[in-house]
């Protein structure tokens, strides 16, 4: 079996028991060796604070200078593995330098564990951590309510903290939160479920970490290939080496090089002594092209119909990491490092800083260590980038001080700067269309018609998976395609809506109107929503032109959905932790006569995608 890798970070205040928790995971995943255990037992007797018990925290003891002076030095990386997974833990100290440390640890994490001391409740510090986790868009969050032993394993205390956190997190953009009551000291719900919390229906921490699904958090849609170096051993071979930042690529596919905008086709994809039939996000490969076009380090290969944003003015959320402040009253040249490029730049303007305790915005001209700010940066040449939310690799930068060579800041790109939007987006590959154009004009240009592929089905039926696969396929074929799903609309367009029947109808109405606008621009829009009520789906059909709406029923046996339970929602619904859950205590009206029926419990995804493609071809859409 291929073992997978999960990178996570732990955050918490100084005495929340973070070291004890990590020490416990290391100890109980049985990766400690005899000699290390002997040292731990000896140290526990000598320095420990747990009486006769092993003090797991001592496993985490750091450098001599840390122990001597009580100084915590930045992030440490720990490892442990179980038969299922290897784990890389970024262990960030809870000291006052929290922001810099957390950003460092969080930048590569798939998951964050936020520790809360049950006896103290939700503190300012916990809110700070949650804010930073949200800012860095870490896909999964575990709120570990620790020291349950100090509150007699009280369900009420736990529920109060969970409620407080839920209420606070509505202001944030956290996508997937799991709550677990633990006692790191006494090993309750750490590696195994504890008998002391019979009221807790979820899993222990370690089994959860072993199962949490992280693959889908990568962007496999937008092909971005920053070139690291050109490999030219002889005149017969000229390859471009790099790590695929996002998307997928196959030999024969057309690509264009930025900034030259010259196009060619992929000849071969090399990985050492092999050539690959396809390569995808995360792989380090070497690509050869059919034509001799000028490409060097720092350039980027992308697809013609899926360009990144291009601008030399960008809006960035910046974390200032240097002791020496940035003072805009005397502008200072900095270097932006973005993918494999380095470009001279200035911080043009500080829009505001964010108080991480209150989330209030403040006006200032100076950034101090650990400040988080929205800034405008001007670069000497155009950057080609994506929003950090959609692409961590092409949406992140660091700033380097060219005099001291220090890394002074980390930044997440929000967008091209609004004030320069219309000037800067101009590129020979993007046609500026004025709004007199009709849908037919767009469709003519695109070479296919606009349509809505509406995926409906129970939670866990496979809608998102199928939606992504259709999206990738149509995109790879050069179609103008986009995708709407529950998570992305509920964080923005529909963030004011809940899950009552009325709110659900309104949610679907808005999505319907939005997809109509997309169709008017000639796009194929994949909508992936449970959309339980027939009347709502019929409404969307009614506002679209004839033959443009494909009701696609993801037909999957509910028992299979429950077994899959990718987000653990069925488990929670059955346990009564969430109400109004479709299929459990809220009805689902299956389509009686769908345009397409996909039996996702029977056929593999590739076959289902093929059925959709065949249908679109039959109907003359593509």
């Amino acid at each position, binding site marked *: 079996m291929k073992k997978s890798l999960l990178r996570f970070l732990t955050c918490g205040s100084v005495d929340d028991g973070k070291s004890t928790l990590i020490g416990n995971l290391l100890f109980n995943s049985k990766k400690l*060796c005899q000699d290390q255990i002997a040292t731990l037992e000896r140290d526990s007797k000598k320095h420990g604070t747990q009486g006769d018990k092993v003090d797991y925290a001592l496993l985490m003891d750091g450098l001599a200078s840390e122990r001597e002076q009580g100084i915590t030095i930045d992030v440490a990386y720990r490892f442990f593995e179980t038969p299922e997974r290897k784990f890389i833990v970024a*262990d960030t100290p809870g000291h006052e330098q929290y922001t810099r440390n957390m950003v460092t640890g969080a930048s590569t994490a798939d998951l964050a564990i936020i520790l809360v001391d049950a006896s103290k409740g939700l503190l300012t510090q916990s809110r700070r951590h949650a804010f930073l986790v949200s800012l860095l868009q870490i896909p999964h969050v575990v709120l570990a309510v620790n020291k349950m032993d100090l509150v007699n394993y009280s369900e009420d205390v736990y529920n109060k903290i969970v409620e407080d956190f839920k209420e606070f997190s509505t202001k944030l953009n956290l996508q997937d939160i799991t709550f677990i009551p633990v006692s790191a000291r006494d090993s309750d719900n750490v590696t195994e479920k504890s008998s002391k919390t019979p009221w807790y229906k979820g899993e222990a921490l370690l089994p959860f970490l072993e199962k949490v699904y992280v693959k889908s958090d990568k962007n496999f849609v937008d092909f971005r290939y920053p070139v690291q170096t050109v490999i030219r*051993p002889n005149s017969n071979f000229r390859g471009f080496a790099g790590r695929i930042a996002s998307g997928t690529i196959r030999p024969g596919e057309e690509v264009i090089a930025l900034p030259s905008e010259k196009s060619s086709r992929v000849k071969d994809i090399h990985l050492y002594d092999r050539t690959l039939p396809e390569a995808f996000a995360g792989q*380090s490969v070497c690509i050869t092209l059919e034509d001799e076009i000028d490409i060097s380090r720092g350039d980027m290969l992308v697809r013609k119909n899926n360009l990144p944003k291009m601008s030399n003015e960008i809006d960035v959320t910046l974390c200032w990491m240097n002791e020496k402040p940035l003072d805009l009253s005397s502008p200072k040249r900095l270097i932006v490092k973005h993918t494999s490029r380095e470009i001279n730049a200035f911080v043009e303007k500080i829009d505001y800083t964010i108080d991480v305790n209150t989330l209030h915005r403040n006006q200032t001209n100076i950034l101090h260590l650990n400040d988080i700010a929205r800034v405008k940066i001007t670069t000497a040449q155009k950057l080609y980038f994506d929003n950090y939310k959609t692409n961590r690799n092409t949406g992140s930068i660091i700033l380097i001080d060219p005099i001291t060579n220090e890394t002074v800041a980390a930044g997440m790109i929000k967008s091209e700067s609004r004030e320069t939007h219309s000037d800067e987006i101009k590129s020979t590959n993007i046609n500026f269309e004025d709004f007199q154009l009709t849908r037919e004009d767009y469709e003519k240009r695109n070479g296919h018609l606009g349509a809505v592929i509406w995926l409906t089905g129970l939670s866990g039926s496979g809608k998102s998976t199928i939606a992504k696969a259709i999206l990738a396929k149509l995109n790879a074929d050069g179609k103008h395609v986009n995708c709407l799903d529950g998570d992305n609309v509920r964080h923005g367009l529909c963030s004011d809506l809940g899950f009552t029947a009325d709110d659900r109808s309104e949610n679907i109405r808005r999505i319907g109107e939005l997809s109509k606008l997309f169709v008017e621009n000639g796009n194929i829009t994949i909508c992936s929503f449970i959309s339980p009520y027939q009347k709502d789906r019929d409404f969307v059909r009614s506002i679209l032109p004839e033959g443009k709406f494909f009701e696609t029923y993801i037909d999957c046996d509910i028992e299979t959905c429950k077994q899959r339970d990718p987000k653990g929602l069925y488990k929670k619904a059955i346990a009564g932790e969430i109400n109004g859950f479709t299929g459990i205590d809220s009805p689902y009206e299956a389509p009686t006569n769908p345009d397409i029926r996909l039996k996702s419990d029977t056929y593999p995804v590739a076959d289902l995608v093929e059925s959709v493609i065949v249908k679109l071809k039959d109907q003359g859409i593509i």
Partner: protein
Amino acid sequence: MPYSMSQLDQLEAEAIHIIREAVAQAENPVMLYSVGKDSAVMVRLAQKAFAPGPVPFPLLHIDSQWKFKEMIQFRDKFCEENGLKLLVHYNKEGKAAGVGPFTHGSRKHTDIMKTQALVQSLEQGGYDMIFGGARRDEEKSRAKERIYSFRDKFNQWDPKNQRPEVWSLYNGKINPNESVRVFPISNWTEMDVWRYIERESIPIVPLYFAKKRPYVEIDGNLIMVDDDRMPLEGREVKEDYIRFRTLGCYPLTGGVLSTVTTMAEMIEEMINSDISERNSRVIDFDGEASMEQKKREGYF
């Protein structure tokens, strides 16, 4: 499952990316080559990073003059067969003074013949980017080290003055005479290294496999009698099937009793082992925080 990478694939892709970034940012890179298992993996990763071209930097071996004979034989053959440029450096002054672990003790020997030899050779070579095979799981001070570890002109590491390292954006900027040590396999564990060697069929020094070898027992360590510089002082030379989990200077590296002769058997033995890798490294037990101290002085 489509588009999923195993742990080894991810670690490999990350390491290749790091190696390419470092070379692109450097003027005079070099890779430290200790002939051990981590070095074996590092060389393969470098080959992968630049294939089908050659590895664009030399390998540097710091020869303490007390390495196992089999290591030196393997080194020369391996580098020649793989078309790798090999540089060997030793501390001439130390050798002339007859410095060795038996006469001067492990601490002094390591300082003069390893740390000082390393610093000398890096200064003489004027290298600005030095690849090392250190892993964060080896030792607690390594857990705190960045992938790009900045060194001042005295080759010193200051744990309190490390550059923030976020995403995969590495800052390799330096002033003259400063350098960066780059650790592409920081996130690998000992098991990852062995599994990768097995998967890729990478050749390794035969000392990792069990063979009947002569040894004496010193302070509980099984020290192989590799040449006649070993003072026996009445100790009994035993012979048995032993192998090594880590390779250094032969008098400072303890062997283990074992019958392992294949990679598959070795991995099996490792999985069931409950002794850590560096337990047989005598120099790690020279005093509290000894690795950190050595690193501050310029050791890797």
